[in-house]
């Protein structure tokens, strides 16, 4: 969590710095009166690094992925809940379950 968060912050900072560098570069081009053909290579590298860092952080920090397969252990339904709204009381429990000596004492 801590490491992921730090990497995420670093990634966003790198992206911001890349943007700032590009603006600065264009300002420089205006002064020297050259055509803008593309950002310099170090800005591109910075941009890619920032992208990778932010992406990695966004995938790891919020939590683990859950399975969407219907047959995975977390999703595979093995039994239905007992239909408790329709439960009836005159069954064998009367004879089998012994709770005679239980008492609620408040």
């Amino acid at each position, binding site marked *: 969590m801590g490491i992921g968060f730090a990497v995420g912050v670093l990634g966003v900072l790198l992206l911001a710095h890349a943007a700032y560098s590009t603006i600065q570069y264009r300002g420089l081009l205006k002064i020297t009166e050259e055509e803008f053909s593309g950002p310099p290579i170090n800005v591109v590298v910075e941009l890619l690094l920032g992208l990778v860092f932010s992406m990695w952080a966004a995938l790891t920090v919020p939590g683990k992925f859950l399975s969407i*397969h*219907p*047959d*995975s*252990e*977390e*999703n*595979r*339904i*093995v*039994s*239905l*809940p*007992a*239909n*408790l*709204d*329709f*439960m*009836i*009381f*005159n069954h064998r*429990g*009367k004879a089998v*379950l012994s*709770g*005679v000596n*239980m*008492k*609620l*004492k*408040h």
Partner: protein
Amino acid sequence: MVTKTEETQLINLENQVENGGGGAWEYLCLVRKLKVRRSDKVLKHGLAILNDSKERSSLGSEEWTLNEQVAIAAMDCQCLDVAKDCINALQKRFPESKRVGKLEGMLLEAKGSWSEAEKAYSSLLEDNPFDQVIHKRRVAMAKAQGNISEAIEWLNKYLEIFMADNDAWRELAEIYVSLQMYKQATFCYEELILSQPVVPVYHLAYADVLYTLGGLENLQTAKKYYASTIDLTGGKNTRALFGICLCTSAIAQLTKGRNKNDKESPELQSLAATALEKEYKQRAPGKLSLLTSTLRSLKIS
């Protein structure tokens, strides 16, 4: 719906609680969440918490939920005194509550005084005619009295109003199956599959009913639904695997002597048989010979 992970969790927690390892409250919460019927254990451990004043006060407002849970469990175990005490405590805390009114009706049911329970429920329904739980209790009451046809009638009336209630459809299907009215049961299961298409248990139950009905067309449909159960469970449902084998042999018996242009793939049965053999080898090696002889007799016929 109880998934595999939740089932394992429940079993582990149950063992832990039964052996005095603590965690009774977590166990009771899980039982409530999964809606499983463990009345004897709920009564034992829930009552222990309720009788321990320190533990009880640490629950805060959850105490009343526990009171309700223990009351229902106690009725299920026929400990009517405990149930009465719990309901009285709830009654004192929530004097006007409908939910407590339902519990009182259930207590009358557990005592067997049906006419009084009926009276209690109808007075509750007068206040709120669309209280689903009370309608369901009436169905259950008819069933408990052995009056199945009345229960079906009530349930059908109920389902006309609350068509989206899956539990009620399931109950109706189970009642029909118990009366061997399989045609009607298939309708209920179709309804359930329509509303919850990814629950393998409904596919399996539907296939079972169709197989029981018999006839070539039904058997072929049953086979398809067994196959879809296998698809949804990843082949971990033994009953569906057996169903495939049985359906194939029954279809083969029916179509024997007819022209052999069936589109049925012959691999399905052999695949199911292999999966069964593998599972038996892994989990019950002693029964493997029994399985192979059964499968052999199915293939011959």
